[in-house]
């Protein structure tokens, strides 16, 4: 393996299960909407939890021993200010405590910025996670065209994990102009007259593009696939047409299925392109956000042995529909009658801190005497277990089977009813756990499930993260997979 050639060693995408049919918007309001669908983060997801899911895909697609030396997290919609959100992702992934975790939040441009920093590092592997929940007022273009998704890219120099796409050139152009803006906490982004953004963006894009081509020593016509993305749809389209690309080189922008995923869009585009890439191909990313950034990669031989455990194309193909009313209530645009049950209490920070491995990384314990897996972890096992013979049992990546299930229409949930199953995990371990991303009629005894990281609810503004199970749909089952950190 050649060291020193910096590039991408893994990627992962996460598109939430639910899809809003844009036509449903115009059916309801008589205006807005459009064609196709957009992806919708579930009521139990936020940018942090979706980021975990994307990062899990990236990590699970490569050797479990691959180093992660730094974590960056970018979103325009962070769940916390002041407090770092990347540390939650760090905990869920069980990264080493000496691996730092940083947020680069607020702007769409943050994600390509984090990627550029990771690519510019002198050494080590960096995990760049981007995640976004895109909102807008009902009938707005942002509401219809936005999409919720997350991406993860692991960048390195090949010393730990093979580089599948080597960076060969980059370019950047920056300018201060206010064509889109949003005050933190607001649902709605505001826009200046559309022509203004186009007028500013197109020259910036061309400038950065030409700089990157020059840096890479290639011509525009040599680029095999280019993802052009950004916050200004019209500017993106116009700029893409002026880059000198072969007609077939312009990659699908996923607008028809996912929508514009904001900070996650660049990583999603990269995943889409790399899924079909062949060795030797040139791949370009161009991001138009408060300037323009262009990265050009050459796909390496290593791509042939890279297989995503959860390909983006499979996720896109396996979405489930969501009524527009649910979409509005999940995003808090419409307040619906809550269940007439007491709301949950805030999570105890001290209790959560003591049980970080369990709560965030779903690590139970295995009784070395009886072999029984305990979830939650216990100090003393059932069936005559003695104290002191427990070892950690990482269960997040272990698949399971539904033994039995029930539907609870009485319990508190931000989006009732609760579907709840007793799950038997492969290789041992049982836990009664909530199912998500499913309608009650989707579940059967014997159904295969996998674990997913979720934000169960928030109380006193503390987000309560934990794991749920989801049905395995069209993706490779986790059975018999090597689990990262399983024995540690």
């Amino acid at each position, binding site marked *: 393996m050649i060291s020193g050639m910096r590039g991408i060693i893994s990627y992962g995408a996460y598109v939430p299960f639910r899809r809003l049919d844009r036509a449903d918007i115009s059916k309801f309001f008589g205006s807005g909407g459009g064609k196709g669908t957009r992806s919708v983060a579930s009521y139990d997801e936020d940018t942090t939890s979706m980021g975990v899911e994307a990062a899990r895909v990236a990590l699970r697609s490569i050797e479990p021993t691959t180093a992660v030396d730094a974590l960056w997290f970018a979103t325009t919609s962070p769940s916390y200010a002041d407090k770092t959100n990347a540390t939650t992702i760090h905990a869920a992934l069980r990264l080493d405590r000496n691996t730092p975790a940083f947020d680069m939040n607020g702007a769409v441009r943050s994600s390509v910025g984090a990627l550029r920093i990771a690519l510019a590092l002198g050494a080590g592997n960096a995990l760049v996670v981007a995640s976004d929940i895109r909102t807008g007022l009902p009938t707005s273009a942002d509401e219809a065209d936005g999409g919720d998704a997350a991406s993860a890219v692991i960048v390195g120099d090949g010393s730990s994990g093979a580089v599948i796409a080597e960076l060969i050139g980059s370019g950047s152009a920056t300018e201060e102009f206010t064509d889109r803006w949003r005050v933190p906490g607001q649902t709605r982004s505001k826009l200046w007259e559309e022509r203004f953004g186009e007028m500013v963006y197109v020259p910036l894009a061309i400038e950065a593009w030409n700089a990157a081509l020059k840096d890479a020593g290639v011509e525009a016509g040599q680029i095999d696939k280019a993802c052009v993305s950004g916050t200004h749809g019209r500017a993106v389209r116009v700029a893409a047409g002026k880059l000198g690309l072969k007609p077939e080189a312009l990659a699908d922008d996923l607008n028809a299925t996912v929508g514009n995923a904001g900070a996650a869009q660049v990583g999603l585009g990269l995943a889409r392109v790399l899924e079909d890439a062949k060795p030797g191909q040139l791949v370009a990313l161009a991001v138009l956000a408060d300037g323009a950034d262009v990265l050009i990669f050459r796909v390496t031989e290593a791509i042939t042995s890279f297989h995503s455990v959860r390909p983006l194309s499979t996720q896109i193909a396996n979405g489930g529909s969501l009524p527009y009313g649910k979409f509005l209530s999940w995003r808090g645009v419409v307040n619906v009658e809550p269940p007439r049950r007491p709301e949950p209490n805030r999570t105890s920070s001290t209790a959560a801190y003591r049980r970080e491995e369990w709560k965030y990384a779903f690590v139970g314990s295995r009784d070395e005497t009886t072999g*029984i897996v305990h979830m939650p972890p216990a100090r003393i096992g059932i069936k005559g277990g003695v104290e002191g013979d427990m070892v950690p049992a990482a269960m997040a990546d272990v698949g399971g089977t539904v033994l039995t299930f029930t539907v*609870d229409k009485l319990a508190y949930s931000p989006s009732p009813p*609760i579907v709840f199953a007793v799950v038997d995990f492969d290789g041992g371990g049982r836990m009664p756990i*909530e199912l998500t991303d499913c309608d009650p009629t989707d579940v059967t005894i014997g159904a295969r499930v996998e674990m997913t990281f979720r934000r169960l609810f928030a109380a006193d503004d503390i987000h309560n993260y934990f794991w749920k199970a989801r049905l395995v749909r069209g993706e490779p089952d986790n059975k018999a997979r090597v689990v990262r950190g399983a024995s540690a």
Partner: protein
Amino acid sequence: MASHGIKDRVAIVGMGCTRFAEHWDKSSDDLVIEATNEAFASTGVGKQDIDAYWLGTAQTGMAGITLSIPLKLEGKPVTRVENFCATGSEAMRQAAYAVASGAYDLVAAVGVEKVKDGGYQGLNSFPTPTDGTNRTLTAAAMFSLLLPAYAKKYGVDEDEIRKVIARIGSKNHYNGARNVRAQYRREMSAEQICSMPAVAGRLAVMDCAGVADGSAAVIMCRAEDAHKYTDKPLFIKALSFVSGNGSGLVDPDFDFTTLPECAMAAEDAYHQAGVTDPRGEIAMAEVHDCFTVTELVLMEDLGFSPRGQAWKEVLEGSFDLTGDLPVNTDGGLKSFGHPVGASGLRMLYEVWLQLRNEAPPERQITTNKKLGLTHNLGGYPGEMVSFVGIFGAEKG
């Protein structure tokens, strides 16, 4: 080491029980005063004649002062007891042991719950700070897991079991309709219950215990002193208690067709009482029918029916008022209502009435068998506490 029990050493000499209902006009204080007044009167003693009190309440109040303040007790020990929905039985168990130990001559156990001041339907727990990973499922949903598991294990159609448990509900409503103290005094047919929409698994609202306010009280003394207070004492034959270790939620061998804590508590109780043939020796049983399906499984866990057979016996009417082993003759939790801390003592109150032939004629059982059983559980399948008590009107 062994569970020896206190067979025939402690006597029940007086009891009281309020109506269980949505007592919008009564406080916890009113309820304990009402229940204890009846118990004092039936024993012929006053509040200061009692040497020590135990108060069972799950979450209506903390500490013994929840009882000593409303009763204005002077210098009396009051121990507040909590053990989930088995709280009332647990208070009685502790009080009985205090008498058996010789520490006190005359003791009272009082159970109370004021659940209808919370503003929500159903039962709601006190918030304990946690790491946020605990289940938030209702008890109804957890118990609903029993139905498909039982149906599958014994090869019975789920719809058939659905009808079986509706029949249990119907039976308990029939009994409750003959009880002036019951929350629901309306008969309901199995068909009516079956036709209701499911709220948790296949359980409908009418498969769930009534949620009520209420209080019940018992007064106990040493067996040899019993006739100082009453001509018709009951004698404690057995008091058993098992706290589960949560293994059902962890153990892949657990199949959700049994409540092992209840089976273990029953086994211990039968041992203490010297009962070898529960079905043949128990005259009547008050069991914890928090959900109709719970009562089905309990018939097997308590040894009344062989495994996999209780559903047939339910249909045959074995546990009806006129059956050979009437169960929940007062309407049970289903119809009498379930004020958590009071329920265990309410069960005992029915045994008190039945074994003394003081139940209203319309539900008084006739039998040659001598023993009454109460079964009181708390928690849910896999994570449970269970109490079993056995009582008789005669020593020996």
